[in-house]
């Protein structure tokens, strides 16, 4: 790929959410398709001067990649986060205390 796009990377739940503001047109199709409603509107502006999307608005991301699938502009890329890297992961001590 000769052209490079800059990503906004957010870690949320099980996923690493890469969003490319130069591609996102703010259509909101991903917001409606998200099964855990984690995607919402961000402060940054996208390709058409409309708000881009970001995770962290509902329950944590489950990395189902539905938003990546329905995005007409390929502006979203979801990577699965390794369990040891997750900030919300319970340690063995947490489990014992419950």
């Amino acid at each position, binding site marked *: *790929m*000769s*052209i*490079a*796009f*800059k*990503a906004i*990377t957010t870690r949320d739940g099980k996923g690493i959410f*890469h969003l*490319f503001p*130069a*591609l996102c*047109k*703010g*259509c*909101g*199709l991903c*917001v*409606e*398709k998200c099964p855990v409603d984690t995607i919402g509107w961000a402060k940054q502006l996208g*390709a*058409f001067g*409309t708000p881009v999307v970001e995770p962290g608005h509902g329950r944590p991301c489950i990395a189902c990649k539905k938003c*990546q*699938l*329905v*995005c*007409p*502009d*390929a*502006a979203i*890329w979801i*990577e699965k986060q390794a369990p040891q890297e997750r900030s919300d992961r319970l340690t063995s001590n947490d489990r014992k205390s419950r």
Partner: protein
Amino acid sequence: MAIEAQPQMPRVWRAETKPHKFCPGCGHGIILKALGEAIDALNIQQRAVFGCDIGCSLLAWDFFNLDTIQTHHGRTTPVLVGLKRARPELLAICYMGDGGAYAIGAQHLVSSVSRNDPVTIIVANNTQYAMTGGQMAPTTLPGQKTETSPYGRDVELTGRPMLGPELVATIAPSGAYVARGTVANVVQLKNFIQKGLSNQLKGRGISFIEVLSACPTNWHTNAAETWHFIEKEMSKFFPVGELRTPDGEQRQEVEHRGRQP
């Protein structure tokens, strides 16, 4: 230096022309992403020729790293049939809207289907003529408001929505692949397009895939209403699924022969 994250576009997409020219939320982007992934999966980038029609579909003229031609009013099909006859080793992909394929270009579609030309036709059905501002098309749903039907489509006066794949499935000779997909189910859509392309690769006959697409700009809908219209309203009149598969025909023939004494 670590490699920075880059968009997961299909390899056949032309990244320099992105973001593409379609409106926010347009179904064309989703269909062309599924088409790009199907081309990547079959590894036919060097052999495929992409033809787009007049209407919003012409905005795909610089979408792919493929040889591309743009024609008018449904003539994408005869132009690419000519190409296929001259160079049978190439793969012809005709990409049209419902206006080009069903309204003014229906003659080309019907002739091509009755000849069973080995090309792949993909039609985006968004229930109106989107590029000219959302006028009523043959596929407009009963009661749907458009620029030229401000009180809703009157079925007494203007008829019922045209069912393209059903028409093609009725008149196509054996070896045809006919299906209807939707942008609400991208995995299934990619599967249909891939089957349509491999039908052409095997040289069995025509492949026709209609896709229920979205036009939020002319429907005047937000994202939630757009999904509701595609998944609930459109699927009432346009059932999604495969109508004709060459494998199914063969299976039926074998079963039929097996039953004979």
